[in-house]
């Protein structure tokens, strides 16, 4: 492979040597040959334009051949620019040193035309091949990056808002293990009262799986424009059968997709789902109890052309949540080959604070931390649905600390909460009640159990009709609803000192819930805002 356009630089302090080399190279057909008299000139020339080959003398004034090689080695250019070292026949040690510094090969003076030709051609050929490989890799990487961008663009953004007058939030996550992957996640509305959720996992990863994923995604979306789309998704087993038929036809590679398709009728909360070989989704009720939505639906998509799918249904209640994941989460490995497991995913789900926005990122980060730098096990896709989470949230303020707040810190925290509630137009009375409840609960938590040295998370949300609060701490079990009722009608002498705080909490909250989950106390309370309480006492 002789490329006459190759650019060659001759570096030698002896003009006769340069002339001789120039003549030989010209005779070999090269037309772009430059010259430099020493190392300094050589580095300047190399910096000014890109060469395909440098013929480099060793002994030179100003900067010798070693100096040039060292400079090129320092900034890594030696890997892309082949150097042929010119040496006298009797100096083998310096040549060895040059090769160690990264020179590609050497030729000896006086120059033998045949050897010179062979070395120059083979060095240029190697350079051309490695350039080709590098360019090809670069191009592939660019293409893959573009494919990744396009694939991620298939995922609709998370949703939080009202559909058919009911509050709904959907968080989605897609993280291919390589540039592109075979997991698919989607959600969309059909009509104005139905939401469709879809999540799948192609039986492989990489580019082939990505094409299969895109096909599955596109075909599902194609169903949404059919005139019978509402009927089709109300009975998602029908939509799934169509999808399966199309993916099975002529599927010689036998690539398949485990899939979960669900439709939620907003007005009634009725969720119909079909599992095509996919792992059962997690269901979490408002009180924090976790269940799996089992019930086989049918085989993965793409395997059995005439497969029949079975739907299952549950009714979602306000505050219910649904989490669907692919095995990239559950089967991620740590360096000791332990798997992340469904238990950890379930624990994450149970411990979620309803007010946390887009928590799936946190789950993915936890999986990555678990893998501790190992390459991702598989693509990850997840979908989290919260059905009427906590009313329409106007704003939320969060505190997270490694220890329960001290009495001084409680006062400071309450100042911030009151300012936050004021900013969101919450009336002074509801703000005062919120401050009282927070103060009482936090004081009780700090004195309950041996120490306050335990993590606590506090979130306060302002909603149109109420203020809600969540307090999570990892202390000993503590249910604020179970504290004994103090007797309020006894005389002063008999009146016990204490027991009033939690009594106040129970009186002030319009709703008070408690659950013990994963070794944590999870308490949710609500305080009605002015105008929504019928029992306000006059004075």
């Amino acid at each position, binding site marked *: 492979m002789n490329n006459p356009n190759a650019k060659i630089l001759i570096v030698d302090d002896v003009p006769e040597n340069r002339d001789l080399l120039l003549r030989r190279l010209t005779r070999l057909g090269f037309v772009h040959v430059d010259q430099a008299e020493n190392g300094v000139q050589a580095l300047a020339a190399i910096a000014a334009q890109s060469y395909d080959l440098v013929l480099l003398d060793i002994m030179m004034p100003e900067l010798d051949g070693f100096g040039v090689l060292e400079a090129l080695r320092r900034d890594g250019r030696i890997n892309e620019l082949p150097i042929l070292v010119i040496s006298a026949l009797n100096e083998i040690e310096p040549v060895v040193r040059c090769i160690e510094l990264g020179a590609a090969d050497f030729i000896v003076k006086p120059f033998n035309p045949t050897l010179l030709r062979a070395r120059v051609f083979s060095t240029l050929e190697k350079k051309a091949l490695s350039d080709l490989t590098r360019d090809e890799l670069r191009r592939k990487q660019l293409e893959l990056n573009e494919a990744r961008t396009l694939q991620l663009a298939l995922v609709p953004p998370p949703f939080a808002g009202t559909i058919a007058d009911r509050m709904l939030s959907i968080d989605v996550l897609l993280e291919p293990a390589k540039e592109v992957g075979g997991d698919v996640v989607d959600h969309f509305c059909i009509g104005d009262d139905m939401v469709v959720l879809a999540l799948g996992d192609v039986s492989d990863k990489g580019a082939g799986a990505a094409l299969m994923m895109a096909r599955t995604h596109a075909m599902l979306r194609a169903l949404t424009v059919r005139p019978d789309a509402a009927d089709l998704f109300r009975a998602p087993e029908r939509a799934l059968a169509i999808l399966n038929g199309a993916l099975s036809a002529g599927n010689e590679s036998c690539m398949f997709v485990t899939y979960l398709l669900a439709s939620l009728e907003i007005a009634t909360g009725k969720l119909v789902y079909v599992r095509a070989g996919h792992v059962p989704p997690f269901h979490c009720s408002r009180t924090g109890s976790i269940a799996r939505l089992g019930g086989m639906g049918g085989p993965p998509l793409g395997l059995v052309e005439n497969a029949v799918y079975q739907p299952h249904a549950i009714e979602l209640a306000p505050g219910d949540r649904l989490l669907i994941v692919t095995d990239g989460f559950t089967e991620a490995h740590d360096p000791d080959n332990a798997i992340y497991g469904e238990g950890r995913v379930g624990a994450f789900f149970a411990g979620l604070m309803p007010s946390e926005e887009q928590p799936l990122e946190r789950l993915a980060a936890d999986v990555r931390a678990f893998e501790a730098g190992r390459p991702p096990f598989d693509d990850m896709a997840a979908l989290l649905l919260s059905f009427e989470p906590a009313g329409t949230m106007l704003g939320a303020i969060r505190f997270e600390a490694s220890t329960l707040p001290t009495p001084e810190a409680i006062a400071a925290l309450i100042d911030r909460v009151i300012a936050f509630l004021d900013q969101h137009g919450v009336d002074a009375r509801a703000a005062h009640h919120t401050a009282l409840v927070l103060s009482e609960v936090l004081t009780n938590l700090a004195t309950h159990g041996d120490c306050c040295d335990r993590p606590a998370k506090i979130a306060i949300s302002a909603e149109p009709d109420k203020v809600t609060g969540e307090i999570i701490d990892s202390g000993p079990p503590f249910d604020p609803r179970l504290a004994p009722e*103090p007797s309020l009608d006894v005389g002063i002498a008999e009146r016990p000192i204490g027991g009033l705080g939690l009594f106040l909490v129970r009186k002030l909250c319009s709703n008070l819930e408690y659950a013990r989950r994963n070794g944590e106390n999870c308490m949710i309370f609500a305080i009605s805002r002015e105008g929504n309480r019928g029992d306000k006492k006059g004075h």
Partner: protein
Amino acid sequence: MIDCEDKDGMEIRDERIGDTFVVTAKGRLDGGASAAFAEKVGALITSENPKLLIDLAGVDFVTSAGLRAVLVLVKKVKAAGGSFALCSVQEQVREVLDITGFTDMLRIHAARAEAISAMRG
């Protein structure tokens, strides 16, 4: 005579009007301030038949810890055969007293002057 502001921002001032100790409190009577409040005000009760009036005009936040402090003081005054009253209670604090039954248990006057003349009698 006590006249101090502790680190939690609770201000306590007391004066003697006739035979009545009038304590003016300002700030929050919460978990951080109440124990010190009970101790400082309790130290005023040294004689037989003490008369103690606590003016809550400047107190906008009373938690159960504050209620406990009040209860401790009331018991101490009663044990010494004295009388105890609150005055100028802010509406939101009044609500807490209502809910916890303190309103029925304590003498609460709308204003300081009215309270002092009632206690003198």
